[in-house]
């Protein structure tokens, strides 16, 4: 009996101490981690989408909330003075969720550019979505009314050969972006002011 109690006590105390310690470390690093995520995951994509932005979309980021969606918006002032936004949506592929940063010109409702942010696809194949710009550049200039599905599914996007599932993941993310954009546009425009 004594042995049993000591087993339980030691394990419990140990895990509790571990929990406390980790919580402390977490709270100490939380802010920095958030910045790092922004810096390394979102910043390069936004940089690519708005190469000539006249403001700092990262610093001016704001959050839009509706009943069930919470979305981080990166606003941008384009060089021609028109307003644009970028936000991230997710599609899924075999390697897991694919993050897609979509830049949209608010005045024309056209996609400026898209970039893959996070993915864990097989190196060399799925990761082409990130490195091979010829695939993502298909989206540039498309209106938000376009059917972003792959050509095989009745849409307009050419799949990457040998990486159909990844391509599908990107197109799903784009379609999701379309849906969110249409739903949230009024709110976004309101907050942009």
């Amino acid at each position, binding site marked *: 009996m004594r042995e049993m109690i000591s*087993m339980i006590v030691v394990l419990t105390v140990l895990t509790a101490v571990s929990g406390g310690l*980790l919580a402390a470390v977490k709270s100490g690093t939380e802010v920095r*981690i958030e910045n790092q995520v922004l810096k390394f995951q979102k910043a390069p994509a936004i940089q690519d989408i708005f190469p000539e932005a006249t403001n700092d979309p990262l610093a001016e980021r704001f959050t839009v909330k509706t009943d069930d969606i919470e979305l981080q918006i990166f606003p941008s002032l384009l060089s021609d003075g028109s307003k644009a936004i970028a936000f991230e949506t997710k599609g899924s592929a075999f390697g897991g969720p694919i993050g897609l940063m979509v830049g949209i010109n608010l005045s024309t409702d056209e996609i400026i550019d898209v970039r893959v942010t996070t993915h864990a696809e097989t190196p*060399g194949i799925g990761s082409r979505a990130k490195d091979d710009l010829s695939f993502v550049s298909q989206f540039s200039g498309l209106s938000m009314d376009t059917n972003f599905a792959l050509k095989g599914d009745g849409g307009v996007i050419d799949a990457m050969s040998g990486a159909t599932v990844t391509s599908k993941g990107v197109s799903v993310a784009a379609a999701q972006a379309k849906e969110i954009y249409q739903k949230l546009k009024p709110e976004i425009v309101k907050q942009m002011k």
Partner: protein
Amino acid sequence: MAQSLAKEFTKGLWAEIPPFRLVLGLCPVLAVTKSVENGIGMGVATTFVLVFSNLLISLLRNVIPSKVRIACFIVIIATFVTIVELVMQAYTYELFLKLGIFIPLIVVNCIVLGRAEAFASKNGPVLSVADGLGIGLGFTLSLAALGAVREFIGNGTLTIWEGLPVFEMGGNFLPFQFMIEAPGAFVGLGLMLCLMNLIGKK
């Protein structure tokens, strides 16, 4: 004392250098050695966990009941792994992304648990730290060496730290991509092991 301290430390660098002499902890060795940089990063992270978990386990070795021994060791190790994970996220985020799932998997690296069981749970804290440091450094060295071979043949470069290529092959060099793919990891490690046997068994 000083002598045995030195002995525990240096044995990890040659006599028991993982994963060559102690064929353990192969998964990270194979997975993250696409470049020298990854190798060193993984090695340092593992060393950190090794040193601190060895220290703590050796301090607590008389308190922990033997039936929940493994569970306790694992909790201690996992705590340090999580600290490494958080710290790496905060300060070396890019490396964190590259090493990915293998950071949390340091928990199940047989070297760490192996040292905890075989050494730290039987020796005092000073020796245990020396042991952890030695084995960890040896592991880092091995990872860096394998990383160097794979990166050099597979990519034509040698990079010690982010954006700091020490060496780059000329334009005519055709990288042998096989080496940075999965099979190259196995073959590279196998051949290095062979080399070690050749040197060591004279």
